[in-house]
């Protein structure tokens, strides 16, 4: 019976076979890279879709060469039909929100660095971790497969509102099998993220190395932990909602389709379903999802800013509390997406108040960043530039959120490009800048080579200026009454806005092309970049105290002991103006010496 105690079951040996080493790997670092590759692939797909949409919005009757190969009925002769525009829009939103903004900053970087930052040799459940990635990858394949079946992908938008999501093929192209594939894909995605959250939470709580108390965790580790808690709650609600939609499709139930509903002159066989029910279930997931995308970015940017400032933040503890407050409040504000849904108007007030309140922790975070920058010896590089760019996007996009939090204003702006500009800046581009910042910062540790700084800075400035050129005009379009989701504006008052759309399209094409610089830099540096030292940024957290790239067990058979808070900068030590978390060295601040 003593054998019962003799096995540490969680530990796994270094892989020897190709499949186990590179494909079905149990190593959190490989899984992190796989997530990153998936996000990169998805981002490219999403970007191409946005290009196609933008070209169509600028020049409605233009034939896009080769588009007819993707869909003969959706783009006869290469000219996009309105329905196909909506299908591309749906896929763009779904791919970007789920497979880029959720996977890259959370699953990719978190998988690679969370165990190292807490001092562990791996996640506690490596098989679940591997399953998490491959289920997510399967979800992506299922989603993309809808391009190649029947009448194509669903056209209901990434929010998949009822009753359109439940009525079947009568609702339009893609509303039959396209919706079913979308729901299966997202349900699979939920399972993958739940498995990931399970590993993230247990890693943070249970695998911290000696001396790594909770308040000594780096801000990124806190951000991933908080995000995983949000994911656990949100994805566990979205998955049953998807199941109910699938049942409405394949089993003839009536969860979301109201009675006596006529679509395309056909009376629907369903009865009594609640269309609002889907919106409640979806947005209970959907709004936290915004923070699932952005909170890791807040952690990454904070981490990079502190390293670049060479001094501590005004209050790291308050930053952690603010991220926690954002997470909690994100579940109380979801109704602001439903101000025009027909729900009880008094509910709008109940959701409007916490929506305004949630700006308080977000504002505190920004103020901490900005005031911490004052008087710092800031080091400019690609990572820190993107971190600063994140702040700019977060503020610019966040300010428009103040307007939309008011039900009376939102009713006017909700269906316009104002909302498109708002969420693209605060959620989409800001999170993307967080991903870029994290890539430039951690690439040396992940790949063992440095990225090209000059190309990185060119990439930043083109992206920064380009992003404003694309999304600021969206706000003006919205205020001018330009309705969103329309594929063209042929013969009404919106026609005068088409030149603005053409300008945005040109900006989008150039900004998108600038991302090819990043792609080139990433691939070229991976193979031919300058070899990276162990700690190129003179940073302090545990990932910089191990070899580059980290060995299989992360610390080469040793296990670090933590002596310091995560960001000890602006001190005098034997190595410079910083002291590693693992260093037992007695150090003094300049203040102490005076």
């Amino acid at each position, binding site marked *: 019976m003593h054998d019962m105690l003799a096995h540490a079951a969680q*530990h796994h040996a270094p892989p020897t076979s190709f499949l186990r080493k590179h494909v079905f790997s149990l190593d959190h670092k490989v899984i992190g890279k796989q997530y990153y590759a998936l996000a990169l692939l998805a981002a490219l797909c999403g970007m191409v879709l946005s290009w196609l949409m933008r070209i169509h919005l600028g020049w409605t009757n233009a034939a896009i060469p080769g588009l007819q190969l993707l869909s003969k009925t959706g783009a006869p002769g290469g000219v996009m039909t309105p329905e196909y525009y909506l299908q591309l829009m749906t896929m763009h939103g779904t791919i970007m929100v789920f497979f880029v903004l959720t996977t890259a900053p959370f699953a990719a970087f978190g998988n690679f660095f969370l165990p190292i930052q807490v001092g562990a040799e791996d996640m506690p459940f490596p098989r679940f971790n591997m399953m998490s990635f491959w289920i997510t990858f399967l979800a992506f394949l299922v989603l993309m497969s809808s391009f190649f079946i029947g009448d194509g992908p669903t056209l209901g938008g990434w929010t998949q509102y009822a009753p359109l999501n439940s009525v079947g093929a009568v609702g339009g192209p893609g509303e039959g099998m396209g919706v079913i594939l979308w729901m299966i894909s997202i349900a699979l995605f939920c399972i993958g993220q739940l498995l990931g959250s399970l590993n993230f939470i247990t890693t943070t709580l*249970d*695998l911290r190395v000696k001396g790594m108390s909770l308040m000594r965790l780096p801000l990124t580790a806190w951000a991933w932990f908080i995000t995983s808690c949000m994911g656990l709650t949100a994805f566990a609600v979205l*998955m049953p*909602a998807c199941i109910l939609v699938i*049942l409405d499709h394949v089993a*003839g139930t009536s969860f979301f389709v109201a*009675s006596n509903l006529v679509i395309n002159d056909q009376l629907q066989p369903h009865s009594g379903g609640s269309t609002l029910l889907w919106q409640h279930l979806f947005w209970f997931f959907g709004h936290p999802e915004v923070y699932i995308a952005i909170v890791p970015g807040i952690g990454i940017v904070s981490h990079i800013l502190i390293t670049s400032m060479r001094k501590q933040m005004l209050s790291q503890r308050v930053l952690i509390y603010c991220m926690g407050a954002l997470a909690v409040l994100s579940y109380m504000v979801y109704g602001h997406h439903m101000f025009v849904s027909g729900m009880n108007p008094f509910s709008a007030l109940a959701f409007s108040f916490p929506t305004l309140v949630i700006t308080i922790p977000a504002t505190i975070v920004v103020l901490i960043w900005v005031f911490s920058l004052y008087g710092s010896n800031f080091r400019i590089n690609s990572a820190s530039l993107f971190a600063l760019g994140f702040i700019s996007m977060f503020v610019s996009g966040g300010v428009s959120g103040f307007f939309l939090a008011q039900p009376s204003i939102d009713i006017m702006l909700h269906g316009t490009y104002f909302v498109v500009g708002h969420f693209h800046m605060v959620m989409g581009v800001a999170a993307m800048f967080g991903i870029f910042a994290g890539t430039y910062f951690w690439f040396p540790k992940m790949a063992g080579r440095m990225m090209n700084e000059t190309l990185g800075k060119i990439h930043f400035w083109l992206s920064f200026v380009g992003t404003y050129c694309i999304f600021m005009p969206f706000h003006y379009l919205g205020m001018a009454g330009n309705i969103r989701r329309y594929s063209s504006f042929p013969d009404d008052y919106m026609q005068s806005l088409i030149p603005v759309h053409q300008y945005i399209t040109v900006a989008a094409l150039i900004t998108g092309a600038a991302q090819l610089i990043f792609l080139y830099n990433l691939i070229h540096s991976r193979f031919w970049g300058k070899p990276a030292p162990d700690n190129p940024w003179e940073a302090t957290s545990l990932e910089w105290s191990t070899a580059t790239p980290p060995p299989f067990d992360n610390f080469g058979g040793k296990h670090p002991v933590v002596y310091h808070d995560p960001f000890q900068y602006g001190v005098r030590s034997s190595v410079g103006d910083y002291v590693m978390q693992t260093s037992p060295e007695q*150090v003094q601040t300049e203040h102490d010496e005076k």
Partner: protein
Amino acid sequence: MASTVQEPPPTDPHRAPGSGQAGNGGWRNLVPPDNDRQAVLDYSPPPTSTAIWVVLFAITMMFAAFTSALFVRKGSSLDWQSFTLPPILYFNTLVLLASSITLEVARRRIAAVIGDLNSQVNGPAVWLYITLFLGLLFITGQYVAWLQLRGRGLYLATNPSSSFFYVLTVTHALHVLGGLGGLVYVLHKLSKSILRRNQLDATARYWHFMGGLWVYLLLLLWSKL
């Protein structure tokens, strides 16, 4: 003169933190610096203890979503038709609750065996087999309930009330099947004498939760259908 150095929080290598307990200076890694895996098992509660609470929370959220959907759907239309629950559900409830008792007996006996190197494992295994049998009996009973409803003309799409009945009971049954898989896993580990206390505790906690969840669902179905 102030200094920025901070010693690691004090640790007590002789203290064995309870399951889910945070701390011991944060030293909860699976492998200690001297690579003495035997030693770390004594002091470091494996993450399974935390993980099972995470799993149960996710399941709770899932059924909370179904529950809120039921309330909204019932209140949103007049097409809701109530029906009497199949009586076998009450028998199934007793079976599932009994299985919790037998599993608890098994868990306590195995826990005692783990603490006694000279004990035999055959005794506790019998109680695990009984639990497994009761679990399978519960699933069979649920299947009979579905057949009985079918016999009364109540299918998945007949009415929203029957839709929710099938959705809730099938989803719960799938989770119970997961618990049965856990029991088989525990039996396998036990037969090879490599069962760890936390694995047993986590499986038991999950199984008890399934029992509690079923009682909740039964009350919900009884009061709302």
